[in-house]
């Protein structure tokens, strides 16, 4: 396929589609590890624990498993912070001393790098019962299908973003990924050279640098590794690995998933289907009396 390139080819920056099966297998392993971390941490959550404590637990768990670098350090959001209510600036994403209470929704988000292979995952749940969250999780499955189908059709990423918005509005949810920096629903990741690096403002410097460089090149060539609903994303899907994170909110309850989408020249598929939010069956429909 041809990309709307101005100078050179995409090869200049990224070799994503040159990833071998072995590479993809390594990405899959890191993603499994990250989800295992989220599931283990979620299973141990108790009322009274704070976001900071939980973020630290995830960090330690991943480091014990050999994680040597980060796309970003783990995040944890509790209660209405899962829907990014009244978030105005990036520091508000950072873990706080908000305590988990019974019935509260939570989101765990971690992005470990292991020997250069990055995962970026999001895991939503609730301590005890939360019907709104159950429905959100069930409905997020539709978005998972929608996204991969539309990318497969090679619709411009901006339009895919808008389709997600339309579906969310139809379902009655707010698009909360627009609260992320640059309103992104996804960003690209790639294989980094094995190694480790400093963390700046909770983000791994090596990953940030890669992203900045890729963005710079992309901008010149008419595409962007940051997928949002602006003109910059008005291009067909760029081959590579995309960490896709649709984030929906119903008032004070937010839910998301985040996982890697493999985009090739003529196809797209989710890197792994054996993930908690995929295994979970959609919530059964409920009758409302008139």
């Amino acid at each position, binding site marked *: 396929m041809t990309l709307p390139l101005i100078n050179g080819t995409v090869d200049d920056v990224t070799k994503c589609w040159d990833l071998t099966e072995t590479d993809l297998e390594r990405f899959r392993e890191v993603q499994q590890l990250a989800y295992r971390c989220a599931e283990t941490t979620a299973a141990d959550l108790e009322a009274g624990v704070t976001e900071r404590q939980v973020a630290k637990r995830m960090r330690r768990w991943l480091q014990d498993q050999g994680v040597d670098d980060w796309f970003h350090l783990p995040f944890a959001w509790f209660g209405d912070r899962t829907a990014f209510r009244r978030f105005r600036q990036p520091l508000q994403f950072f873990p706080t001393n908000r305590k988990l209470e019974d019935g509260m929704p939570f989101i765990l988000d971690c992005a470990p790098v292991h020997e250069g292979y990055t995962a970026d995952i999001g895991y939503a749940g609730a301590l005890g019962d939360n*019907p*709104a969250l*159950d*429905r959100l999780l069930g409905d997020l499955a539709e978005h998972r299908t929608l996204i991969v189908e539309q990318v497969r059709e090679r619709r411009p990423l901006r339009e895919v973003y*808008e389709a997600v*918005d339309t579906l969310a*509005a*139809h*379902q*009655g949810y*707010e698009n909360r990924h*627009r609260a992320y920096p640059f309103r992104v629903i996804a960003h690209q990741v790639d294989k980094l050279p094995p190694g480790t690096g400093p963390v700046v403002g909770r983000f791994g410097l090596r990953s940030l640098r890669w992203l900045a460089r890729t963005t710079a090149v992309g901008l010149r060539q008419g595409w962007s590794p940051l997928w949002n*609903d602006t003109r910059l994303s008005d291009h067909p899907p760029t081959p590579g690995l995309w960490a896709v994170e649709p984030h929906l909110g*119903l*008032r*004070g309850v937010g839910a998301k998933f985040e996982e890697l989408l493999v985009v090739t020249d003529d196809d797209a598929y989710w890197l792994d289907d054996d993930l908690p939010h995929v295994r979970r069956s959609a919530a059964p429909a*409920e009758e*409302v*009396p*008139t």
Partner: protein
Amino acid sequence: MTATAPTRRWVTSHDVDLAVDERGPSDAPTVVLVHGYPDTSAVWAPVAERLADRYHVVTYDVRGAGASGAPEGRGGYTLDLLVDDLAAVVDAVSPDRERKVHLVGHDWGSIQGWEAVTTEPLAGRVASYTSISGPGLDHVAHWVRARLHRPTPRHLGQLLRQGMRSWYIGAFHLPGTTLVWRAGGARHIHHTLVRLGELPKGSEPAATLARDGALGLNLYRANVLRRATRPAERRTDVPVQLIVPDGDRYVTPALLDDTARWAPNLWRRDVPGRHWLPRTAPDHLAAWIAELVDHVESGEATDPPSLRRLRADAAPVVVVTGAGSGIGRQTALSFAERGATVIAADIDGDAAARTALLCRDLGAAAVYHQVDVGDADAMEALAKSVEQDHGGTDVVVNNAGIGMAGPMLDTTANDWERILRVNLWGVIHGSRLFGRQMAARGDGGHIVNVASAAAFTPSRGYPAYATTKAAVLMLSECLRAELSGVGIGVSAICPGIVNTGIVTTTRFVGVTDGEQARRQQATKRLYSLRGYGPERVAEAIVRAVDRDKPVVPVTIEARFGRALSRLSPRLSRRLARLDPTGRI
């Protein structure tokens, strides 16, 4: 209702002869109405007449008032004696001790009522009690103590407000006040109350007012200080209906906030009005009394919907039209988040059902109705079913609307009919039917009509849409004036550019289908980029109801448009010549 002369009988209690009047069939349930100070049983006449065709209605002049005798000295006016009087009247008019009576008290009559349902003499004889503007004296003392014990700013405010309205009680303890009543003060006080709007215009003072006013001071002198300093914990299991007028000059609504502590089986009806409801709102008052009497007589364990909504834990009932998407859906969710019972109406039944489902996820009760707001019969059916199932509506949000853009000269008659039907007739039906329902019920409510910034921002770009919205704005303003006296608030909400589905369904007249789709898509992007979510309008709607705001422009462009239309209509007209749809 036929006004028949009451039958008079005399009942003697502790050597005082009480003048007792009876109306209506003697085999019907007995309702005893006790008057306050400085009234006589005449204050109840309009209500008694309205109740007399269905109930055995009893009124009497309490000791020291009207035709009844008066004891010597203030010691003859203690609440114990007053309750004994009431018991003697009840025994006389309803000798069958198996049959309980329904008690209603106003002002000091209500204070006596509280005493009666919490003490021995009438134990087991009262089936229900309706209390109007008169808290139990011991309850008041506990209310004050509770607030002094926890002197939060809110509590202190309540104390201050009540204190400012209770100054006269202190004055009544001064020696000179008896003389004031006797020496012609009575007429003056009566006319002052009429002038203040407390009593209806043209009402004449009772012939015995001077004597009643002077003797009745003993009610205060014999009881208030004693109960204030040594309050007892008086409780009752009798079903109690509190009727609380919001404009009571003597009893603030907050003074009754702790009543459930003493009477757990409680309904509270907050209503618009002043202190003398028996005189100013006899129709409503009779209906409210009858509602409780009928319910208690029926022996049903569960409340009918009309009473259920008066329970402390009852959720307000909110009807939202166009609740299947956009501002309507978000408004439903905003009210649901605050615990309201939501009735989601939309022409798209599935979308309305989805909204109801989401409301339930937020913990609220919710149902949906598929309804075309432009269809008078369908709207009538909706109003009727809401009344039947939920006992009426507290808030109705007439939100359903469609968009239309393009030149006036290209707008066909069909286009006009279509947009008028939804945007204007929908609001007319909603306001008319639910407004009438609220007014008939008498305890207030709120109507919200969703207009638009287009209502005051003329433009060649959307003449049909702006016309309908301007009409909605004016309708709301007029209706607000009309309903101001009956406690029903009306708000017009005027949102500017809000990112909702209305854009994708807006009809652009006078262009090809392809151009239509292109404009819809382009407008949608513009609206999305503006990024003002419908949930923010929903919050503005909730605030408008809370604060009873008349007109609420939402978004900066709406506020700007409104300011411009007032400050410089000329500039507003110039800007109207720009064609916003031509540029997208």
